[in-house]
């Protein structure tokens, strides 16, 4: 009996000590970089933006005390945020700063707030509504945003579907031809950045055939839009005769594209296969894992392993990091779920070296360790999931996490 007690007591003590040790993760970066945690416990922090004065904006996917946007300010410049302003009564993902305005999105609407000369928001309770009435059917409902230098805003409208089947995610259900979802979703829409109350009628379908773009950024070097796309799920589960467990985990590729007006990414008819380097016909549309399709569709610049969920894209403009990083792309991978029973993959920030808008080398993992595990089998135990990226005016890189609401700042010291 006494032994039982001591075993129980030991077990309790042990879990306590493990819990303490495991509390904070260590972020690994290349030599010369250092990472500090600057924000904690703000819940589901999706995309983030840093203003010229250092203000950090967080867009939340779940309201915290009724608010969906947080502005953190370091008033005495000691490196610690000492002033918190919470506003906006809507959830969402998108946030961006441009020409004296803060833009923020819910899952249906894009708002903007005017900033004064001191970078304060002039009317926190009454933002202007720029875009409204966008499709929100729960699945893939994040409206990520970015702006160009010619007065336009680009909004991702994700397809509320896996691969446009008659019955979504149902084994054996055929793909619809043509896919009606593409009329109002599954692409990027362009709107005027300063015109009020626009909806589909006033917007332009800038690009189509993009299942769900969560990461997007305007590349100033080549003056074009770039996006990262979440590829489809369920190849192995629905077509085990065509894809084995490993192939289903690895395929289709998660992709990065350069997008020109009118481009078509091919969804749902094809997916990108980075191993064959081809646009492969979806099995719901008669594909067999080898047949190609959609000749009109553009090819991605990079095909990453499947299901890793590229949630943010950022072109590095600063001078703080070594020269190789200039104009290159950072991508925050949220981490997979549709690789099971294979281990999950992602949960890190990747770097793609770029020159003139084209990759100039292989992609590499830049910052890792967010999940807290070497190998992820249990998604519920994952500590942090990278979701947003922003660059400070000093050239530091900020990474947000929408699991526990952390933000890290990554800097380089010569």
């Amino acid at each position, binding site marked *: *009996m006494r032994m039982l007690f001591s075993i129980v007591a030991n077990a309790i003590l042990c879990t306590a000590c493990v819990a303490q040790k495991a509390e904070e993760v260590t972020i690994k970066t290349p030599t010369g970089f250092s990472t500090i945690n600057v924000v904690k416990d703000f819940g589901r922090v999706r995309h983030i933006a840093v203003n010229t004065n250092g203000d950090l904006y967080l867009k939340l996917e779940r309201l915290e005390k009724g608010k969906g946007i947080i502005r953190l300010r370091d008033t005495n410049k000691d490196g610690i945020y000492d002033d918190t302003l919470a506003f906006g009564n809507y959830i969402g993902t998108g946030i961006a700063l441009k020409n004296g305005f803060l833009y923020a999105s819910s899952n249906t609407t894009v708002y903007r707030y005017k900033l004064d000369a001191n970078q304060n928001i002039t009317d926190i309770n009454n933002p202007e509504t720029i875009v409204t009435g966008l499709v929100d059917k*729960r*699945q893939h*409902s994040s409206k990520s945003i970015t702006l160009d230098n010619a007065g336009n805003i680009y909004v991702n409208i994700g397809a509320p579907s896996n691969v446009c089947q008659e*019955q*979504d*995610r*149902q*084994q*054996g259900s055929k793909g619809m031809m043509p896919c009606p979802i593409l009329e109002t979703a599954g692409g990027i829409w362009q709107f005027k950045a300063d015109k009020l109350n626009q909806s589909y009628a006033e917007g332009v379908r800038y690009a189509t055939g993009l299942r769900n773009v969560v990461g997007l950024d305007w590349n100033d070097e080549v003056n074009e839009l770039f996006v990262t796309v979440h590829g489809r*799920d*369920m190849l*192995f*589960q629905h077509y*085990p005769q065509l894809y084995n467990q490993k192939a289903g985990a690895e395929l289709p590729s998660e992709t990065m594209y350069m997008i020109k007006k009118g481009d078509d990414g091919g969804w749902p008819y094809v997916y990108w296969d980075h191993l064959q380097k081809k646009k492969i016909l979806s099995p719901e549309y008669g594909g067999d894992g080898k047949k190609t399709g959609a000749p009109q569709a553009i090819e991605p610049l990079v095909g990453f392993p499947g299901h890793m969920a590229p949630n943010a894209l950022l072109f590095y403009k600063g001078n703080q990091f070594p020269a190789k990083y200039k104009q290159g792309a950072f991508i925050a991978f949220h981490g997979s*779920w*549709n690789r*099971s*029973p294979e281990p999950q993959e992602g949960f890190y920030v990747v770097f793609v070296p770029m020159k003139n808008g084209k990759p100039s080398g292989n992609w590499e993992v830049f910052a890792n360790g967010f999940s807290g595990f070497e190998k992820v*089998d*249990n*998604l*519920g135990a994952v500590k942090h999931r990278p979701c947003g990226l922003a660059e400070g005016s000093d050239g530091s890189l900020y990474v947000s996490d929408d*699991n526990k609401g952390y933000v890290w700042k990554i800097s380089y010291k010569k």
Partner: protein
Amino acid sequence: MKKFSVFIVIIFSAIVYLFAQTGTVDIKASVQRGKKVYTQYCLACHQADGGGVPRMNPPLQKTEYVLGDKKRLINIVLKGSNDPIEINGEEYVNPMASHAHLSDQQIADVLTFVRNSFGNKASGITPAEVKQARAKK
């Protein structure tokens, strides 16, 4: 001490025996078959440990749906669901597809497996119960 543990073992076996008798299904065999069905048709979304995928696919661990009304549970598998279901204060954005293509036996097995795995403990589900739910539509 020894007597005490023998007593525990007897009580425990009696409970297990009673449980096995009350259901008309052979729970152990059904659970074993159900595990195979689960691995093939449910695991991708609900994960190997039944923990689900945060914000996308709900867990199957001691949820109201798994442990509660059998008809409602059978109907979720037969008809699927794309309405906001709240489970322990969370909503999940993916749709659950209909699995009506599975046989009455497969659905009974997989639900019996789910109700007796991932920390769950509940009575089994019979093919007759699935058949009845299917007939009602």
